[in-house]
Protein backbone atom coordinates (compact mmCIF):
# COMPACT_ATOMS: atom_id res chain seq x y z
CA UNK A 1 0.00 0.00 0.00
CA UNK A 2 2.80 2.35 0.97
CA UNK A 3 4.78 1.39 -2.14
CA UNK A 4 1.77 2.01 -4.40
CA UNK A 5 1.19 5.54 -3.14
CA UNK A 6 4.90 6.31 -3.12
CA UNK A 7 5.25 5.18 -6.71
CA UNK A 8 2.28 7.21 -7.97
CA UNK A 9 3.23 10.33 -6.04
CA UNK A 10 6.89 10.21 -7.10
CA UNK A 11 5.83 9.81 -10.73
CA UNK A 12 3.66 12.92 -10.60
CA UNK A 13 5.64 15.51 -8.65
CA UNK A 14 8.50 17.84 -9.50
CA UNK A 15 10.30 17.03 -6.25
CA UNK A 16 10.16 13.23 -5.84
CA UNK A 17 12.83 13.35 -3.13
CA UNK A 18 10.38 15.22 -0.92
CA UNK A 19 7.64 12.60 -1.21
CA UNK A 20 7.08 10.96 2.14
CA UNK A 21 4.60 8.21 2.89
CA UNK A 22 3.84 6.85 6.33
CA UNK A 23 1.25 4.35 7.46
CA UNK A 24 -0.62 4.23 10.74
CA UNK A 25 -2.35 1.00 11.64
CA UNK A 26 -5.19 0.13 13.98
CA UNK A 27 -6.20 -3.49 13.45
CA UNK A 28 -7.54 -3.89 9.92
CA UNK A 29 -7.60 -0.15 9.39
CA UNK A 30 -4.63 1.53 7.78
CA UNK A 31 -4.23 5.25 7.27
CA UNK A 32 -1.73 6.11 4.57
CA UNK A 33 -0.33 9.61 5.02
CA UNK A 34 1.19 11.31 2.00
CA UNK A 35 3.37 14.40 2.24
CA UNK A 36 4.81 16.24 -0.74
CA UNK A 37 6.57 19.58 -1.31
CA UNK A 38 4.14 22.50 -1.16
CA UNK A 39 4.28 23.35 -4.90
CA UNK A 40 3.51 19.68 -5.67
CA UNK A 41 0.23 19.58 -3.69
CA UNK A 42 -1.85 20.35 -6.77
CA UNK A 43 -0.22 17.50 -8.68
CA UNK A 44 -1.19 14.83 -6.15
CA UNK A 45 -4.65 16.27 -5.50
CA UNK A 46 -5.64 17.18 -9.05
CA UNK A 47 -8.53 19.26 -10.30
CA UNK A 48 -11.59 18.56 -8.14
CA UNK A 49 -9.44 16.04 -6.23
CA UNK A 50 -9.41 13.72 -9.20
CA UNK A 51 -5.87 12.46 -8.76
CA UNK A 52 -6.35 11.93 -5.02
CA UNK A 53 -9.59 10.03 -5.60
CA UNK A 54 -8.03 7.84 -8.28
CA UNK A 55 -5.19 7.02 -5.86
CA UNK A 56 -7.80 6.11 -3.24
CA UNK A 57 -9.56 3.76 -5.66
CA UNK A 58 -6.31 1.92 -6.43
CA UNK A 59 -5.29 1.91 -2.78
CA UNK A 60 -8.60 0.23 -1.95
CA UNK A 61 -7.70 -2.70 -4.22
CA UNK A 62 -4.24 -3.06 -2.68
CA UNK A 63 -5.76 -2.97 0.82
CA UNK A 64 -8.51 -5.47 0.01
CA UNK A 65 -5.89 -7.90 -1.20
CA UNK A 66 -4.26 -7.70 2.23
CA UNK A 67 -7.65 -7.99 3.90
CA UNK A 68 -7.35 -4.43 5.20
CA UNK A 69 -9.27 -1.18 4.96
CA UNK A 70 -7.19 1.76 3.90
CA UNK A 71 -7.68 5.48 3.65
CA UNK A 72 -5.41 8.12 2.16
CA UNK A 73 -4.68 11.43 3.85
CA UNK A 74 -2.77 14.05 1.92
CA UNK A 75 -1.17 16.27 4.51
CA UNK A 76 -0.57 19.98 3.91
CA UNK A 77 3.10 20.86 4.36
Amino acid sequence: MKALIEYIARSLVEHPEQVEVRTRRAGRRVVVELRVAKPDMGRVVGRHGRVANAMRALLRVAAERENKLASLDIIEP
Partner: protein
Amino acid sequence: MEERTTLEVIAPTVEQAIADGLAQLGLPADAVTVEVLDSGSKGFLGLGGRQVRIRLTVKAPSVETPPVSEAEAEEVVEQTEGEKEEDERVLHLAREVVTTLLKYMHVDARVFVSFGEASGNHPAPVRVDIRGQDLGVLIGRRSETINALQFIVGVIVSKEVGRKVLVLVDVEGYRERREQQLRRLARRMAEQAVKTGRRQILEPMPPNERRIIHLELRDHPHVRTVSIGEEPHRKVTIEPKESHP
Protein backbone atom coordinates in the same frame (compact mmCIF):
# COMPACT_ATOMS: atom_id res chain seq x y z
CA MET B 1 -6.56 -5.19 -37.50
CA GLU B 2 -3.98 -2.42 -37.18
CA GLU B 3 -0.37 -2.88 -38.22
CA ARG B 4 2.08 -3.21 -35.43
CA THR B 5 5.81 -3.66 -35.63
CA THR B 6 6.64 -4.73 -32.09
CA LEU B 7 4.72 -6.03 -29.12
CA GLU B 8 5.87 -6.53 -25.58
CA VAL B 9 4.30 -9.30 -23.55
CA ILE B 10 4.49 -10.28 -19.91
CA ALA B 11 3.56 -13.77 -18.78
CA PRO B 12 4.66 -16.38 -16.24
CA THR B 13 6.77 -18.30 -18.79
CA VAL B 14 8.50 -17.54 -22.08
CA GLU B 15 6.34 -20.10 -23.92
CA GLN B 16 3.17 -18.53 -22.56
CA ALA B 17 4.38 -15.04 -23.47
CA ILE B 18 5.15 -16.05 -27.06
CA ALA B 19 1.82 -17.83 -27.43
CA ASP B 20 -0.08 -14.81 -26.06
CA GLY B 21 1.82 -12.40 -28.26
CA LEU B 22 1.27 -14.42 -31.43
CA ALA B 23 -2.41 -14.77 -30.62
CA GLN B 24 -2.68 -11.01 -30.20
CA LEU B 25 -0.87 -10.29 -33.42
CA GLY B 26 -2.68 -13.03 -35.26
CA LEU B 27 0.60 -14.16 -36.79
CA PRO B 28 2.39 -17.49 -37.07
CA ALA B 29 5.58 -18.07 -35.05
CA ASP B 30 7.84 -17.67 -38.09
CA ALA B 31 6.55 -14.16 -38.81
CA VAL B 32 8.21 -12.68 -35.74
CA THR B 33 11.52 -12.56 -33.97
CA VAL B 34 11.51 -13.09 -30.21
CA GLU B 35 13.66 -11.18 -27.79
CA VAL B 36 13.63 -12.06 -24.08
CA LEU B 37 13.87 -8.76 -22.20
CA ASP B 38 13.55 -10.19 -18.72
CA SER B 39 13.69 -13.89 -18.02
CA GLY B 40 11.90 -13.36 -14.70
CA SER B 41 12.60 -14.87 -11.32
CA LYS B 42 10.94 -17.57 -9.23
CA GLY B 43 10.31 -15.62 -6.08
CA PHE B 44 9.68 -17.23 -2.71
CA LEU B 45 6.84 -19.80 -2.50
CA GLY B 46 5.51 -18.44 -5.77
CA LEU B 47 5.25 -14.95 -4.29
CA GLY B 48 7.08 -11.87 -5.39
CA GLY B 49 8.50 -13.58 -8.46
CA ARG B 50 9.07 -11.44 -11.52
CA GLN B 51 7.27 -12.47 -14.67
CA VAL B 52 8.95 -13.07 -17.99
CA ARG B 53 9.02 -10.14 -20.39
CA ILE B 54 9.56 -10.61 -24.11
CA ARG B 55 9.43 -8.48 -27.23
CA LEU B 56 8.04 -9.78 -30.50
CA THR B 57 9.16 -7.94 -33.62
CA VAL B 58 7.23 -8.53 -36.80
CA LYS B 59 9.57 -9.48 -39.63
CA ALA B 60 9.52 -7.52 -42.87
CA PRO B 61 6.31 -8.22 -44.78
CA SER B 62 6.56 -11.52 -46.59
CA VAL B 63 4.11 -13.85 -48.27
CA GLU B 64 2.97 -15.25 -44.94
CA THR B 65 1.96 -11.95 -43.38
CA PRO B 66 -1.43 -10.42 -44.21
CA PRO B 67 -1.23 -8.07 -47.20
CA VAL B 68 -0.88 -4.38 -46.40
CA SER B 69 -2.87 -1.94 -48.50
CA GLU B 70 -1.00 0.68 -50.55
CA ALA B 71 -2.12 3.51 -48.30
CA GLU B 72 -1.06 1.73 -45.13
CA ALA B 73 2.28 0.76 -46.61
CA GLU B 74 2.87 4.39 -47.58
CA GLU B 75 2.12 5.52 -44.05
CA VAL B 76 4.54 3.06 -42.50
CA VAL B 77 7.30 4.25 -44.82
CA GLU B 78 6.58 7.89 -44.06
CA GLN B 79 7.04 7.46 -40.33
CA THR B 80 10.55 8.61 -39.51
CA GLU B 81 12.97 6.65 -37.36
CA GLY B 82 12.62 9.29 -34.67
CA GLU B 83 8.84 8.97 -34.58
CA LYS B 84 9.06 5.22 -34.45
CA GLU B 85 11.43 5.39 -31.51
CA GLU B 86 9.17 7.87 -29.77
CA ASP B 87 6.14 5.60 -30.33
CA GLU B 88 7.99 2.63 -28.91
CA ARG B 89 9.11 4.66 -25.95
CA VAL B 90 5.51 5.67 -25.20
CA LEU B 91 4.25 2.09 -25.46
CA HIS B 92 7.06 0.75 -23.35
CA LEU B 93 6.45 3.41 -20.73
CA ALA B 94 2.69 2.76 -20.59
CA ARG B 95 3.28 -0.94 -20.10
CA GLU B 96 5.89 -0.29 -17.46
CA VAL B 97 3.60 2.04 -15.49
CA VAL B 98 0.63 -0.37 -15.60
CA THR B 99 2.80 -3.36 -14.68
CA THR B 100 4.27 -1.49 -11.71
CA LEU B 101 0.86 -0.32 -10.47
CA LEU B 102 -0.57 -3.85 -10.72
CA LYS B 103 2.42 -5.24 -8.85
CA TYR B 104 1.88 -2.82 -5.96
CA MET B 105 -1.85 -3.55 -6.04
CA HIS B 106 -1.03 -7.27 -5.73
CA VAL B 107 -2.89 -8.07 -8.94
CA ASP B 108 -1.45 -10.79 -11.13
CA ALA B 109 -2.21 -10.14 -14.80
CA ARG B 110 -0.73 -9.87 -18.27
CA VAL B 111 -0.43 -6.46 -19.89
CA PHE B 112 -0.58 -5.78 -23.63
CA VAL B 113 -0.02 -2.38 -25.18
CA SER B 114 -0.68 -1.07 -28.67
CA PHE B 115 -1.76 2.08 -30.46
CA GLY B 116 -5.46 2.49 -31.20
CA GLU B 117 -6.75 4.33 -34.23
CA ALA B 118 -6.14 8.05 -34.54
CA SER B 119 -9.29 10.07 -35.05
CA GLY B 120 -9.26 13.48 -36.72
CA ASN B 121 -6.57 15.71 -35.28
CA HIS B 122 -6.09 13.56 -32.21
CA PRO B 123 -3.03 11.34 -32.13
CA ALA B 124 -3.58 7.62 -31.74
CA PRO B 125 -4.47 6.68 -28.16
CA VAL B 126 -2.42 4.10 -26.28
CA ARG B 127 -4.51 1.01 -25.63
CA VAL B 128 -3.67 -1.04 -22.59
CA ASP B 129 -5.27 -4.45 -22.43
CA ILE B 130 -5.09 -6.25 -19.09
CA ARG B 131 -5.78 -9.97 -19.12
CA GLY B 132 -5.94 -12.63 -16.46
CA GLN B 133 -8.15 -14.49 -14.02
CA ASP B 134 -10.55 -12.87 -11.55
CA LEU B 135 -9.91 -9.29 -12.59
CA GLY B 136 -13.30 -8.00 -11.45
CA VAL B 137 -11.40 -6.27 -8.69
CA LEU B 138 -9.81 -4.04 -11.35
CA ILE B 139 -13.19 -2.87 -12.64
CA GLY B 140 -14.86 -1.95 -9.37
CA ARG B 141 -18.28 -0.57 -8.60
CA ARG B 142 -19.56 1.62 -11.46
CA SER B 143 -16.26 1.09 -13.30
CA GLU B 144 -14.59 3.20 -10.64
CA THR B 145 -11.37 1.21 -10.40
CA ILE B 146 -10.75 0.73 -14.12
CA ASN B 147 -11.37 4.44 -14.70
CA ALA B 148 -9.07 5.41 -11.83
CA LEU B 149 -6.36 3.18 -13.28
CA GLN B 150 -6.85 4.66 -16.75
CA PHE B 151 -6.71 8.19 -15.38
CA ILE B 152 -3.57 7.67 -13.27
CA VAL B 153 -1.73 5.90 -16.09
CA GLY B 154 -2.67 8.72 -18.48
CA VAL B 155 -1.39 11.39 -16.10
CA ILE B 156 1.89 9.58 -15.38
CA VAL B 157 2.61 8.76 -19.04
CA SER B 158 1.73 12.31 -20.15
CA LYS B 159 4.02 13.83 -17.56
CA GLU B 160 6.86 11.50 -18.46
CA VAL B 161 6.52 12.09 -22.22
CA GLY B 162 5.97 15.83 -21.86
CA ARG B 163 2.71 15.97 -23.83
CA LYS B 164 -0.86 14.82 -23.38
CA VAL B 165 -1.13 11.11 -24.16
CA LEU B 166 -4.59 9.56 -24.20
CA VAL B 167 -4.48 6.14 -22.54
CA LEU B 168 -7.39 3.70 -22.75
CA VAL B 169 -7.37 0.81 -20.31
CA ASP B 170 -9.45 -2.29 -20.81
CA VAL B 171 -9.75 -5.41 -18.67
CA GLU B 172 -10.76 -8.65 -20.38
CA GLY B 173 -12.92 -6.90 -22.99
CA TYR B 174 -14.99 -5.14 -20.31
CA ARG B 175 -15.37 -1.80 -22.15
CA GLU B 176 -17.05 -3.34 -25.18
CA ARG B 177 -19.37 -5.51 -23.05
CA ARG B 178 -20.32 -2.52 -20.91
CA GLU B 179 -21.00 -0.35 -23.96
CA GLN B 180 -23.43 -2.91 -25.39
CA GLN B 181 -25.12 -3.19 -21.99
CA LEU B 182 -25.49 0.60 -21.70
CA ARG B 183 -26.91 0.94 -25.18
CA ARG B 184 -29.52 -1.69 -24.41
CA LEU B 185 -30.34 0.08 -21.15
CA ALA B 186 -30.68 3.41 -22.98
CA ARG B 187 -33.15 1.99 -25.49
CA ARG B 188 -35.16 0.23 -22.79
CA MET B 189 -35.43 3.33 -20.60
CA ALA B 190 -36.33 5.50 -23.62
CA GLU B 191 -39.18 3.12 -24.35
CA GLN B 192 -40.26 3.37 -20.74
CA ALA B 193 -40.19 7.18 -20.86
CA VAL B 194 -42.37 7.24 -23.96
CA LYS B 195 -44.77 4.65 -22.61
CA THR B 196 -45.28 6.27 -19.21
CA GLY B 197 -44.78 9.88 -20.32
CA ARG B 198 -42.46 10.32 -17.35
CA ARG B 199 -38.82 11.22 -16.99
CA GLN B 200 -36.57 8.21 -16.31
CA ILE B 201 -33.52 8.69 -14.10
CA LEU B 202 -30.57 6.34 -14.55
CA GLU B 203 -27.99 5.28 -11.98
CA PRO B 204 -25.00 7.58 -11.46
CA MET B 205 -22.35 6.94 -14.13
CA PRO B 206 -18.90 8.22 -15.03
CA PRO B 207 -18.66 10.68 -17.98
CA ASN B 208 -17.58 8.11 -20.59
CA GLU B 209 -20.61 5.96 -19.79
CA ARG B 210 -23.06 8.87 -19.79
CA ARG B 211 -21.72 9.79 -23.20
CA ILE B 212 -22.67 6.35 -24.55
CA ILE B 213 -26.27 6.88 -23.37
CA HIS B 214 -26.46 10.39 -24.88
CA LEU B 215 -25.07 9.16 -28.19
CA GLU B 216 -27.38 6.16 -28.35
CA LEU B 217 -30.48 8.36 -27.96
CA ARG B 218 -29.21 11.42 -29.85
CA ASP B 219 -31.43 10.76 -32.86
CA HIS B 220 -34.34 9.28 -30.95
CA PRO B 221 -37.53 10.97 -32.20
CA HIS B 222 -39.44 10.99 -28.90
CA VAL B 223 -36.98 11.49 -26.02
CA ARG B 224 -34.15 13.78 -25.04
CA THR B 225 -31.37 13.11 -22.55
CA VAL B 226 -30.06 15.50 -19.90
CA SER B 227 -27.42 14.87 -17.22
CA ILE B 228 -28.13 16.12 -13.72
CA GLY B 229 -26.27 16.24 -10.40
CA GLU B 230 -22.62 16.63 -9.51
CA GLU B 231 -19.73 14.22 -10.07
CA PRO B 232 -19.35 11.47 -9.02
CA HIS B 233 -23.15 11.16 -8.64
CA ARG B 234 -24.04 12.72 -11.98
CA LYS B 235 -26.72 10.78 -13.81
CA VAL B 236 -28.50 10.78 -17.13
CA THR B 237 -32.21 11.46 -17.29
CA ILE B 238 -34.35 10.50 -20.25
CA GLU B 239 -37.47 12.56 -20.78
CA PRO B 240 -40.27 12.45 -23.36
CA LYS B 241 -39.94 15.30 -25.89
CA GLU B 242 -43.57 16.43 -26.02
CA SER B 243 -44.91 17.27 -22.61
CA HIS B 244 -48.66 16.79 -22.18
CA PRO B 245 -49.64 18.74 -19.08
